[in-house]
């Protein structure tokens, strides 16, 4: 059966192994991983960025993430008896890899707020929390959004590896295809995982633009481009 016939076959669009279910599984795994990553990375980065402490950690954590193979972390977590094979191992592994981009970008965004601006806010009678919430975070939104976008796209793409440790998701087709020596299944799965990652990237690029305050859009673009040299680790 050819790849086009595979996509046209209604049987592949329904049931537990159908494309909608598999796609949703991958999105679910990704959302859970991002939720964990944000709950950990944002408070740490906001605190460090506000206090201007921990530059070394914030800027180098990404290098560590790059050097550690995702496959290794996935299989290590899935082989811990308390975690086991399945979605939990994938969610935890993906969350670990999503933390560095969010942490680094949020920190850089906060640390980049001019001292004069902070002094002015303090002069207006704002306390530490007020400065953070009403001055620093709004000014750092472009970079924070860029970090979350980079992390999310990376997580959605990497989630296809979760199938290697027995999770659901679109990677299932590829892994099952290799196990069954079924070329059609391999190609169809590859097309689906690639398409989902690209759609996530395009969608989030739009969201990022939308959440960026109007006044910061043009001004911050050059700055964001430099921060955001894309590096694939998936």
């Amino acid at each position, binding site marked *: 059966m050819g790849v086009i016939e595979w996509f046209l076959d209604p049987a592949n669009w329904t049931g537990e192994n159908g494309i909608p279910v598999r796609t949703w599984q991958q999105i679910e795994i990704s959302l859970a991983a991002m939720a964990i990553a944000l709950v950990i990375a944002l408070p740490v980065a906001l605190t460090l960025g506000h206090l201007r402490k921990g530059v070394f950690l914030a800027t180098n954590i990404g*290098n560590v993430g*790059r*050097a*550690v*193979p*995702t*496959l*290794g*972390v996935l*299989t*290590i977590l*899935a*082989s*811990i008896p308390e975690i086991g094979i399945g979605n939990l191992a994938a969610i935890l592994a993906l969350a670990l890899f999503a933390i560095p981009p969010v942490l680094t970008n949020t920190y850089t965004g906060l640390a980049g707020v001019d001292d004069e601006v902070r002094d002015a806010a303090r002069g207006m009678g704002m306390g530490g929390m007020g400065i953070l919430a009403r001055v620093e975070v709004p000014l750092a939104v472009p970079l924070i959004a860029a970090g979350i976008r980079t992390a999310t*796209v990376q997580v959605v*793409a*990497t989630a*296809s*590896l979760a199938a*290697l*440790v027995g999770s659901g998701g679109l*990677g299932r087709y*590829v*892994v099952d*295809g*290799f196990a069954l020596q079924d*070329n059609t299944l*391999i*190609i169809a*799965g*590859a*097309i689906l*995982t*690639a398409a989902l*990652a*690209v759609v*996530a*990237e*395009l969608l989030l690029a739009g969201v990022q633009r939308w959440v960026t305050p109007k006044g910061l859009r043009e001004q911050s673009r050059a700055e964001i481009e*430099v921060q955001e*040299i*894309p*590096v*694939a*680790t*998936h």
Partner: protein
Amino acid sequence: MLVTLADAANPWLSWTYVQNNWEELVAAGKEHIFLTVGAVVLAIALAIPLAMLVRKVPRLSGPVLGLSGILYTIPSLALISLLWPVFGLSPWTVIIALAVYGLLVVLRNIVVGLDEVPSEVLDAANGMGLTTRQIATRVSIPLAMPTILAGIRIATVSTVGMVTIGALVGYGGFGTLILSGFQNNFWHAQIFTATLCCVLLAVVFEILLLLVERLTVPWTRKQAG
């Protein structure tokens, strides 16, 4: 820390494992280095002419960089799978797939590095009577070199990690050991040792390439300090 997780029958760290499987580990290491270097060298070889094209036709710069930003989101699992019917179970499937990612980073850094050369410097070189070729080889390229080398370093380190996915087609270096250890009843020692070796290899490449950067563009060190 991880030792506490280990049970006696299936430890995470085991010197006996390393001793008994030394030859297998060395073979996996050699394959890992071969695949990494192959992918990065191919990436650089493709990035240079493409960068020259983008410099010649600046209109291409936006689309090429934009397209590269989208292409890099494609998971390596998908790219390796798409190439596998063409190249089969061969190292080329892995090398070519990973070269695509390396290419994007290296190309981007060459273009960004050359764009960042201040126009005053180029004007000065022009005023001193340097030809276009001399400006390129003596002014633009040396000034862009730190950015280009950083791109090559980042591409290399991330390639070391992604080589492991090549295990899917039987050429994954340490990745093949990780996956077979996992499939072999969660053999902790093999999974953990192979992952550790992979991280070590990435660190060694990082240090080697940082050394190359210091030797070839020593002026950046003063700047950084």
